[in-house]
């Protein structure tokens, strides 16, 4: 492909995980021509292949009291009433149909003896609700890929990093990317772009996700003027391994290991003491995160700075545990076995790790962003779950909003004219990318810069935050932007599969995004869900609103706020927190009895 060639299509989808591939299927079914661009390979990069097998869908196959309305209330409450209810409504009411779509693509769900789907209860669910995907997220992604590639109107471009969205008169005109296989830039013209790029967990040091989740989708949207929402909300999953070091962050599904109905293991602090409050159900993630970090912080952690998950006192036999873990398709078991860790015989050390990006690009119920022609589906979207997410809603979200984005983008594209692509802008972008290949005597490698970024996020924008720290972080990012970013260059100037080039592109965006995240966190002067401010430890009713980040000029952004979209009167209909959790002192300001 020559450098100057411009490809043309109706819908461009950036990202080939669950949301991107579902969007491609939907857009193709609407009659649109689709180009799917992914910086890795479809179904073998990004978050979906690594996902746990949980897909939330209120089929009520285990307990007939369940229904989508209860799932809706569960999601609103556990999101600390910060999720937009029109989105949650779509999510919880359509998740079942979308599960059946996947089923028709050959994705299998584990079944009960009677032939109905097995549904398991996870923290935050009123009833057994999660489907168990046989073969985990990988099998789901593989099924979606198979279905997507059946569509002749879908073209897949792998190993292409999208670096810039192109605009014309306030509307999407196309995009520019770097093709890793050839080392050349490519541009695509289309009236719509669907971002399905996932989150930005990789900004932090401890993460259970793959290293490609660097958040450029969020930043690309910001660059063309889209609203970003609740960027400060990063979900810390309670159980990533903290030892051995080389597998730091590997996710261990705590739900299956600790729930009484399943493996019935215990969570203990470094002194071997129980520290979880006595509640009916296992606490949800934001509460677990706070309880665990409190133990570690107050000197009751394990030798490697975590807490224990211990199955040795489980009433279940080793055989039963293995059978349960198999039935639940519990992800880490094989991995732990490879490492020589036997979860039945020895306690494992775990700590909370970044797991899911709650914030992101602001969308409406049809996955439209605030920029015409630009859509966002899946984790990159920011106002669905709120301040915490229940298990199973992420995979459901990819399908519900992937499909909605695909349909709406196709309809829009087929009823609008193409926008001209500004070739000068394309050339400018190519030149910008070229600079990363120009060796500098005082050059800084992307890997070094990423380490610095991770350190700032870890030190100041981690699970506990305060004004002073967040201001330090903002200054540190500003300093990186001035002093380090101009020196950023790849180790070597070869072009084909030069991964350092890709990392340089990512690192540049991460500096900018880091500042926006810190600025959002600084603005939200309360603690809610996964946003934990030591200087504002309580949840404050007046902050039950979104933080919004918007670009105003080249290097200028503003942080404002916006109301949460309601379908119900939350002054009247509102659940209260569990008394035992309130007593444990980690839910300050949460309404109780």
């Amino acid at each position, binding site marked *: 492909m020559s450098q100057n060639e411009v490809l043309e299509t109706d819908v461009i989808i950036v990202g080939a995980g669950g949301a991107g591939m579902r969007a491609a299927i939907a857009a193709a079914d609407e009659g649109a021509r689709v180009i799917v661009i992914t910086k890795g*390979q479809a179904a073998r990069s990004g978050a979906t292949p690594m996902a746990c097998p949980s897909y939330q869908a209120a089929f009520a196959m285990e307990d007939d009291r369940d229904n989508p309305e209860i799932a809706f209330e569960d999601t609103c409450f556990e999101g600390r009433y910060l999720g937009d209810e029109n989105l949650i409504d779509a999510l919880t009411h359509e998740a079942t149909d979308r599960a059946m779509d996947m089923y*028709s693509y050959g994705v299998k769900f584990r079944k009960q003896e009677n032939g109905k789907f097995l549904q398991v209860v996870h923290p935050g669910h009123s009833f057994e609700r999660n489907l168990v995907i046989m073969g985990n997220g990988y099998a789901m992604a593989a099924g979606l890929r*198979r279905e997507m590639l059946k569509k002749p109107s879908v073209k897949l471009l792998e190993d292409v990093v999208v670096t810039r969205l192109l605009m014309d008169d306030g509307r999407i005109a196309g995009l520019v990317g770097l093709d890793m296989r050839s080392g050349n830039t490519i541009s695509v013209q289309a009236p719509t772009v669907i971002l399905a790029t996932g989150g930005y967990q990789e900004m932090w040091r401890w993460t259970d996700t793959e290293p490609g989740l660097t958040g450029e989708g969020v930043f690309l949207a910001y660059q063309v003027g889209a609203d970003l929402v609740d960027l400060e909300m990063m979900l810390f999953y309670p159980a990533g391994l903290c030892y051995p070091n080389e597998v730091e962050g*590997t996710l261990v599904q705590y739900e299956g290991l600790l729930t009484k109905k399943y493996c019935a293991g215990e969570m203990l602090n470094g002194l071997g003491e129980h520290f979880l409050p006595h509640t009916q159900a296992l606490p949800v993630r934001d509460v677990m995160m706070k309880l665990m970090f409190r133990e570690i912080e107050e000197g009751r952690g394990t030798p490697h700075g975590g807490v224990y998950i211990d199955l040795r006192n489980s009433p279940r036999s080793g055989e039963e545990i293995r059978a349960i873990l198999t039935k639940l398709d519990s992800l880490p078991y094989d991995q732990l076995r*490879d*490492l020589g860790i036997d979860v039945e015989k020895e306690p494992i050390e775990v700590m909370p790790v970044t797991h899911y990006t709650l914030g992101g690009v602001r969308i409406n119920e049809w996955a439209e962003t605030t920029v015409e022609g630009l859509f966002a589906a899946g984790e990159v979207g920011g106002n669905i779950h709120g301040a915490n997410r229940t298990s199973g809603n992420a995979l459901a979200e990819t399908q519900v909003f992937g499909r909605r984005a695909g349909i709406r983008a196709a309809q829009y594209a087929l009823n609008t004219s193409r926008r001209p692509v500004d070739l000068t802008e394309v050339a400018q972008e190519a030149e910008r990318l070229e600079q990363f290949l120009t060796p500098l005597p005082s050059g800084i490698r992307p890997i070094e810069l990423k380490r610095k970024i991770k350190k700032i996020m870890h030190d100041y924008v981690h699970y506990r935050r305060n004004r002073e720290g967040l201001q330090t972080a903002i200054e540190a990012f500003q300093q990186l932007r001035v002093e380090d970013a101009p020196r950023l260059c790849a180790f070597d100037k070869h072009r*084909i599969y030069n991964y350092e080039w890709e990392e340089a592109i990512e690192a540049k965006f991460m500096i900018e995004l880091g500042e926006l995240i810190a600025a959002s966190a600084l603005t939200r002067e309360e603690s809610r869900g996964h946003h934990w401010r030591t200087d504002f430890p309580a949840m404050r009713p007046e902050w039950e609103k979104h933080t919004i980040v918007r670009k105003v000029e080249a290097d200028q952004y503003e942080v404002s706020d916006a109301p949460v979209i309601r379908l119900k009167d939350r002054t009247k209909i509102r659940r209260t927190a569990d008394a035992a959790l309130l007593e444990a002192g980690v839910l300050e300001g949460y309404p109780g009895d």
Partner: protein
Amino acid sequence: MEVTLRIFRYNPENGKKPHYEEYKVTAEPTDRVLDLLEYIKGNFDGTLSFRRSCAHGICGSDAMRINGHNRLACKLLVKDLHGGKITIEPILGLRVIKDLIVDMEPFFENYRSVLPYLINDEPAPKKERLQSSEERERFDDTTKCILCACCTTSCPSFWVNEQYVGPAAIVTAHRFIFDSRDRGAAERLKILSGQFGVYRCHTIFNCTEACPREIEVTQAIGEVKKAIATGDLG
């Protein structure tokens, strides 16, 4: 412990011939080979290119030839290599693009040739196409495939002729041929009985040895051969 890695290097842009380079690193016995590659890339030589994504043995990106055996770099621990020098090369039989990255396109072309999706034109029942646990069990093993290409690129028959669909494509075909809901078996068996189908397999078992998911690959191929011969999908 100190280990030496001997890594295949090729850069199409620097005019040098493919060659091996050696790196000495200090490793923990529980380090994975992938950790060592990351270490080398991060500290010694940023030009080293290899694919990776999840690092958990799930995504199948980092298949490579390690001491002569196809393995996922993220699943192989240093202690299991019993010291000495670790030789790392790209998987065989596919064109090397750069260092440890090969052109996977012929592999995926073969995969696509066996119609890797559910085929069933009968009108969909109201609720779902039912399947019993036993019927599901029939193809359980081959659902585990992650298309890492460890099997196909360990197969001497594939090395000889990359038009041979190879073990991975047959495993995928198996997954559908023996699925009670699928109606495309005849079509797939016809493809696989052709010139580049199952009869290129000489039961060498390299594929089974290489599979990081412990799929009984050779057995699956055998079952497909038998189905072609007998027309029986039992």
